[in-house]
C-alpha cells in the first residue's frame, strides 16, 4: 500500500517510479523529481528538525534554499554533510538522512527542556551571568553551552570527493531561470550574444513550476521546458542548472557553484562532486525572483506552519500537501492563490484568515476578513490554530497545515555584495534594489519588484536588450508571451501582538518578537546591534526569512519607519558553500606544485631522504646501509667531503641572466658592494639590501662577458629578487640598457666540493686547465664537458673547501650526476644533501636565511664595510639611520658549548654569565646550530650585542622553552679554516 498519504495527483515528479530513502533510520518512498522535504511531506512527516537554542520541534517552512528549519545530516562517513536543507536535497535511491541537534531522538529531545526555561534564556542573557566564580566559565558553563549549541556534526573523516574549479566568460550572465531569466536568456541568445544562464534549482523555470497559471497559453512549466529546449540548442548559450551564483565581486566577476553530483549516491569515477566556477561577465542580469516572508504570531513555529508560496509549490510542482486540512493566513492577494490551488488539488482548505477587512472572497473556503491568527496547538505538529475574528470572537480552526503569506521580498542579496544598500518600496512594503548596483549588473523580474509574470517576462526581455545595448549588440524584443499581470494587493502586517506564547521571527536561531523588544529596551537599537545582540539573521539562512520581521518590530518600537530603522546588507555567499568546493583540487599532496631537481631521479634510486625547501624537494641526506640515525649519514657526508670530495645538487639557487650595455652599472645599483670593475671571467659575492637598509639577499654574480652576467640568489628569494630587479629596471632606472630573464630551471647545477674536487672535474671537462693559475678561486667560464656538452664552470665555495659549481642544460643533469659519481669512485666521492650543506656553511660561518631574517643589517652580519658609500645603491642611505648603527649593535659570531657534550640550540637566547635571565637582560640569540663532526662538538652562530668585541667571553644560552641552559663561549663564526686557505688551494 502507498505510504505517501499526502501525495496528490500530477506535479513534475515521476509518480511512475519510486525511490527508497531513510530518515532517522525509517524507510520511505518518494519519486524522481522529489526533494527530501517534498518526499517527507508526502509521507506525512512534518517534524524534521529541532531549533538551535530551545530545541523546539520544527518542520519545513519553505520550498527553497532559504529554509531555516528542515536541516538534516545527509549521507554518512566522510561524506556526511551537516545542516543540509531538506528543501534542496534532491532525492536519489538509497538517500540516507538523519535529523540533528537532538538527543536521544527527534521526537524526544532532552534539551527541549531549555524551552521551559526560555524566560531565563532571553536575548543576550549569557552576557549578564556566568561570571562567578571566574574559573567556572571555561570549566563548566562554556562546555555546556558549546555542547548544546552547534547544529550538525562533522564526521572528522577526510572528505573522499574531489572538487573542480573553472573559469567561464560571457557577454551576459543571467542569474535565475524563472520567467524573467528565461525571457532574458532567450532574448540575448537569439541575438547571438555569449550567454550563461545559471539557476540553483535542478529544474529551470523558477515559480513557473510552482504556480498554476499559464504563460503563453500553456502551463507555465511547459513554457519553461520549451524555453529551456530552445536555449540548449544554441551554441552561444550555456545553461547551468544546479548552479548557485554565490557572490558578485569586483568588475563583473561572479562566483558560482555547480552541484555536479549531489543528486547521485556518489560522483561518477573521476568526476568532481561540485565545480566552483569563476564567471567573467561583461554584463549581468539578476533575475533571482522574490522570497515570501512570514507573519509572526504566538507559536507560529509548529511543524505544518509554512509559507503560502511553499505550500503552493509543494502542491503544484511536487504534488504534495503538508496535510489534508490546510488553512491560509495572509495579508495579501497572493495568499489566496494557495487556497485556490489546494482546493483545485482536492485538499480541504479549512479557512482563509486575511488581516485585511476588505479581503476578496474565496471560492470553496471560509474567509475570515480582518482576522488574525493568535495562537496554535500541536506539540510535534500543528493541530489547530486560534483566530481572532474581525468581530472580536476567538475561534479554533482545525488544520494540520497553515499557509502564511506576509508578502514578498525581492531577492536583492547579490545587489548588496559590494555594499550597495537596497531602498524601500512603499507599494510592495519591501526593499528593492538600490541606486548603487555592482558595476555591470542590472535587475529584472520580481527581484526588481516586478511581481507579476507579465512584469517578469517584460523586464527580463528589456533588461537583456539594455545590457547588450551597452556592448553594442542589438537584440530584439519579439512578442512577449501572454501572462497574468495581477497587481500587488497587500496591507503591511508583520506580527500579531495578541496571544500567549512567543512569536518567532528567526526560527533557526530562536529569536522572538520579545527578544527584539528587549534589545530595544537595552538600547541595542541599531540594526547591527540588534543582529549581534539577539543573533537575528545570523543563522545559516542569513535572515532571508527573518530580517524584515525583526526590522519591522524594531521600527514599531522606535516609532521610526522601516527604512529609517535601517537594513542589514547581505554578504557572500548567497547560500552556504562547501569549503571543499572553494578549495578545489589543490589540497592534500597537491596543495602546492612540486619542483624536482635534475638529480631527483638519481637521488631517489640512491635512497635519498627528501625535504621541502619552498616548493622544491631536495635531498636532505643519503642514508647508507648500517646507518640508523640521520646524524651518522650527515656526519659521514661532511667528513668525506672535507676529506676528499662530495657532490650536491644546487640547482634550486635562483639564476638570473643579466645582459645589456649597462648590465654592470645596473648591478652596481642593486648590490650594496661594487660591481663596475669586476673582470670578465670572474665571480663576486654580492650583498643586496632593501631600500630600508636591511640585508635582503646574497649570492654571486659571474661576469661571462662585458655585457653579460649570471646572478644567483638564495633559493627562497629567487622570485622576489627577480621582481625587485625588474622594478629597478623599469621604474627606477628605465634608461639603463639591461635585460633580465630567469634561467634557474634551464641549467642543472652541482657543487663539487673537497680537496679532490679538481681531480674529479679534470676527468669530466674537455681539456680545460683547472689549475689555480689558470682557473683561480672565483673564476668562471663557459666550457664543454663529457665530450662536448655545453657547460658553465664557477669556482665558488659554500663549504669553504676547494670547490666548483658546474652547470649543464637540465636534460643532461641526470646523466652528469651519474657521470660525476662514476668518475669520483676512485676518490670515494659522496653525494651530500641539504643537512651536510647546512653543517658545512655553519662551520664556515656563512649567513643564510636564519641570519638574513629581514631584521638584520650588513653591520649585524659583519659586512658593514661592504656597503659602498661611494655610489648610489638600493638601501645605502637608510642603512645609516642611528637605530641601525647603535654602539652595541648585534654582531654575527660563533658559539661553542663550554662542555663539548652540551648542545647549542638555535632559538636560544643569550644571557650574561651571571645576573638575571629575562628579556631585560637579553644579549642576543642563536640563529643556526649544528653538530660539527670536524670539531666534534655542537656549534652555533648567532647575533650578540657588540659581539665582535666579546670573543672568548662565556655566556649562558637560555632555552627555557625546553628547560635547558648551556654555558657557551663566544668564538669567531668561522670555525673551519678561518684564513680561507682551502678554498684558494
Amino acid at each position, binding site marked *: 500500500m502507498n505510504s505517501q498519504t499526502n501525495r496528490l495527483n500530477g506535479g513534475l515528479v515521476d509518480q511512475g517510479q519510486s525511490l527508497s530513502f531513510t530518515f532517522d533510520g525509517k524507510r520511505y518512498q518518494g519519486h524522481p523529481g522529489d526533494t527530501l522535504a517534498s518526499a517527507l511531506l508526502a509521507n506525512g512527516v512534518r517534524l524534521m528538525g529541532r531549533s538551535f537554542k530551545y530545541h523546539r520541534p520544527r518542520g519545513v517552512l519553505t520550498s527553497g534554499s532559504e529554509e531555516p528549519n528542515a536541516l538534516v545530516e545527509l549521507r554518512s562517513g566522510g561524506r556526511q554533510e551537516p545542516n543540509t536543507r531538506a528543501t534542496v536535497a534532491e532525492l536519489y535511491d538509497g538517500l540516507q538522512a538523519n535529523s540533528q541537534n537532538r538527543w536521544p531522538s527527534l521526537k524526544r529531545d532532552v534539551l527541549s527542556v531549555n524551552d521551559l526555561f526560555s524566560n531565563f534564556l532571553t536575548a543576550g542573557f549569557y552576557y549578564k551571568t556566568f561570571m562567578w566564580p571566574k574559573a567556572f566559565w571555561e570549566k563548566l558553563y562554556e562546555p555546556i553551552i558549546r555542547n548544546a549549541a552547534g547544529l550538525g556534526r562533522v564526521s572528522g573523516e577526510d572528505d573522499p570527493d574531489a572538487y573542480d574549479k573553472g573559469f567561464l566568460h560571457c557577454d551576459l550572465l543571467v542569474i535565475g531561470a524563472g520567467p524573467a531569466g528565461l525571457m532574458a536568456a532567450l532574448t540575448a541568445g537569439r541575438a547571438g550574444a555569449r550567454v550563461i544562464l545559471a539557476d540553483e534549482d535542478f529544474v529551470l523555470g523558477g515559480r513557473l513550476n510552482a504556480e498554476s497559471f499559464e504563460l503563453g497559453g500553456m502551463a507555465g512549466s511547459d513554457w519553461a521546458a520549451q524555453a529551456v529546449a530552445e536555449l540548449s540548442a544554441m551554441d552561444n548559450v550555456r545553461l547551468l542548472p544546479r548552479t548557485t551564483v554565490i557572490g558578485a*565581486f*569586483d*568588475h*563583473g*566577476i561572479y562566483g558560482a557553484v555547480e552541484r555536479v553530483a549531489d543528486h547521485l549516491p556518489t560522483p561518477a569515477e573521476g568526476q568532481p562532486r561540485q565545480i566552483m566556477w569563476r564567471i*567573467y561577465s561583461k554584463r549581468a542580469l539578476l533575475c533571482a525572483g522574490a522570497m515570501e516572508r512570514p507573519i509572526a504570531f504566538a507559536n507560529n513555529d509548529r511543524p505544518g506552519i509554512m509559507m503560502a508560496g511553499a505550500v503552493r509549490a509543494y502542491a503544484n510542482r511536487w504534488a504534495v500537501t503538508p496535510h489534508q486540512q490546510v488553512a491560509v493566513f495572509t495579508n495579501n492577494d497572493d495568499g489566496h492563490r494557495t487556497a485556490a490551488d489546494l482546493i483545485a488539488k482536492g485538499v480541504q482548505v479549512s479557512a482563509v484568515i486575511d488581516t485585511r477587512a476588505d479581503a476578496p472572497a474565496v471560492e470553496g473556503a471560509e474567509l475570515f476578513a480582518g482576522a488574525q491568527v493568535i495562537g496554535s496547538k500541536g506539540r510535534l505538529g500543528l493541530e489547530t490554530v486560534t483566530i481572532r475574528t474581525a468581530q472580536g470572537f476567538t475561534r479554533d480552526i482545525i488544520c494540520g497545515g497553515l499557509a502564511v503569506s506576509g508578502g514578498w521580498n525581492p531577492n536583492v542579496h547579490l545587489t548588496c555584495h559590494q555594499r550597495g544598500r537596497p531602498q524601500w518600496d512603499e507599494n510592495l512594503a519591501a526593499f528593492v534594489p538600490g541606486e548603487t548596483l555592482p*558595476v555591470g549588473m542590472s535587475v529584472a523580474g520580481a527581484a526588481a519588484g516586478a511581481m507579476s509574470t507579465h512584469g517578469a517576462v517584460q523586464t527580463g526581455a528589456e533588461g537583456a536588450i539594455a545590457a547588450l545595448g551597452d556592448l553594442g549588440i542589438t537584440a530584439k524584443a519579439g512578442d512577449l508571451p501572454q501572462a497574468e499581470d495581477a497587481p500587488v494587493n497587500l496591507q503591511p502586517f508583520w506580527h500579531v501582538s495578541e496571544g500567549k506564547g512567543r512569536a518567532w521571527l528567526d526560527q533557526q536561531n530562536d529569536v522572538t518578537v520579545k527578544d527584539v523588544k528587549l534589545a530595544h529596551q537595552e538600547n541595542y537599537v541599531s540594526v547591527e546591534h540588534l543582529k549581534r545582540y539577539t543573533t537575528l539573521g545570523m543563522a545559516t539562512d542569513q535572515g532571508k526569512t527573518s530580517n524584515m520581521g525583526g526590522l519591522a518590530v524594531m521600527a514599531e518600537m522606535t516609532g521610526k519607519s522601516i527604512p529609517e530603522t535601517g537594513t542589514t546588507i547581505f554578504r557572500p555567499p548567497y547560500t552556504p558553500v562547501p569549503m571543499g568546493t572553494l578549495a578545489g583540487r589543490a589540497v592534500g599532496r597537491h596543495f602546492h606544485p612540486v619542483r624536482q631537481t635534475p638529480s631527483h631521479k638519481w637521488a631517489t634510486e640512491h635512497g635519498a631522504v627528501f625535504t621541502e625547501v619552498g616548493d622544491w624537494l631536495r635531498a636532505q641526506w643519503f642514508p647508507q646501509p648500517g646507518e640508523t640515525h640521520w646524524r651518522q649519514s650527515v656526519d659521514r657526508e661532511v667528513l668525506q667531503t672535507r676529506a676528499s670530495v662530495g657532490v650536491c645538487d644546487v640547482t634550486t639557487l635562483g639564476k638570473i641572466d643579466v645582459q645589456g650595455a*649597462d648590465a654592470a*652599472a645596473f648591478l652596481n645599483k642593486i648590490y650594496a658592494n661594487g660591481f663596475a670593475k669586476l673582470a670578465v671571467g670572474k665571480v663576486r659575492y654580492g650583498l643586496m639590501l632593501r*631600500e*630600508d637598509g636591511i640585508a635582503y639577499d646574497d649570492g654571486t654574480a659571474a661576469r661571462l662577458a662585458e655585457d653579460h652576467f649570471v646572478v644567483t640568489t638564495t633559493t627562497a628569494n629567487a*622570485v622576489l629578487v627577480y*621582481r625587485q630587479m*625588474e*622594478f629597478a629596471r*623599469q*621604474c*627606477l*632606472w*628605465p*634608461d*639603463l640598457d639591461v635585460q633580465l630573464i630567469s634561467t634557474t630551471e634551464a641549467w642543472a647545477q652541482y657543487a663539487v666540493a673537497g680537496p679532490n674536487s679538481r681531480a674529479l672535474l679534470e676527468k669530466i671537462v674537455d681539456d680545460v686547465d683547472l689549475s689555480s693559475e689558470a682557473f683561480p678561486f672565483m673564476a668562471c667560464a663557459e666550457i664543454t664537458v663529457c665530450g662536448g656538452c655545453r657547460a658553465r664552470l664557477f669556482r665558488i665555495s659554500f663549504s669553504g673547501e676547494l670547490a666548483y659549481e658546474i652547470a649543464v642544460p637540465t636534460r643532461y643533469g641526470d646523466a652528469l650526476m651519474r657521470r660525476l659519481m662514476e668518475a669520483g669512485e676512485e676518490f670515494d666521492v659522496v653525494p651530500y644533501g641539504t643537512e651536510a650543506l647546512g653543517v658545512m656553511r655553519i662551520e664556515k660561518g656563512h649567513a643564510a636565511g636564519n641570519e638574513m631574517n629581514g631584521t638584520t643589517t650588513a653591520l649585524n652580519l659583519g659586512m658593514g664595510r661592504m656597503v659602498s658609500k661611494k655610489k*648610489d645603491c638600493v638601501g*645605502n*642611505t*637608510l642603512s*645609516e*639611520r642611528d637605530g641601525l648603527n647603535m654602539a652595541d649593535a648585534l654582531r654575527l659570531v660563533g658559539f661553542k658549548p663550554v662542555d663539548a657534550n652540551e648542545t647549542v640550540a638555535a632559538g636560544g637566547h643569550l644571557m650574561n654569565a651571571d645576573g638575571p635571565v629575562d628579556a631585560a637582560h637579553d644579549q642576543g640569540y642563536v640563529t643556526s646550530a649544528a653538530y660539527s663532526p670536524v670539531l666534534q662538538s655542537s656549534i652555533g652562530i648567532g647575533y650578540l650585542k657588540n659581539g665582535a668585541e666579546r670573543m672568548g667571553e662565556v655566556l649562558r644560552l637560555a632555552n627555557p622553552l625546553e628547560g635547558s641552559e648551556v654555558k657557551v663561549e663566544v668564538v669567531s663564526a668561522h670555525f673551519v679554516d678561518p684564513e680561507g686557505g682551502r678554498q684558494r688551494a
Partner: protein
Amino acid sequence: MIINHPLLGPRDAQEFVYLGDATLIERPDWQAENAAEAFHDYLYLRDNPAGAHRELWYHEQGDRSWLVVTRNTLTHEITSVELARDVARAKGRGR
C-alpha cells in the same frame, strides 16, 4: 578585480603582484642635502587616499611589466592603467 593591461587587455588582478603607492617610482637623490629625510618620506609616508589612488602592480604571471594603475580605493573602479616604465621616464627618471 580586472586590470586592463595596456598591451594585453583585461587580465585578472590575481596574475599581478601589488606593491603600492606609485610615488615609489620617485626615488630621491642619494646625494641631496636632505637625502635621509627624503628617503624616509619616500619609503614610509606613502599616499593612502580614500578615493583615486595611483599604485604599482607587477604582472608577474604575465609579461612582467610593472604598471601604474589608478584605482578608487572606495569602489575599486579602475580609471587608467599605464606602463610604469613610461611613467618613470615621464617623471624624468633615466639612468
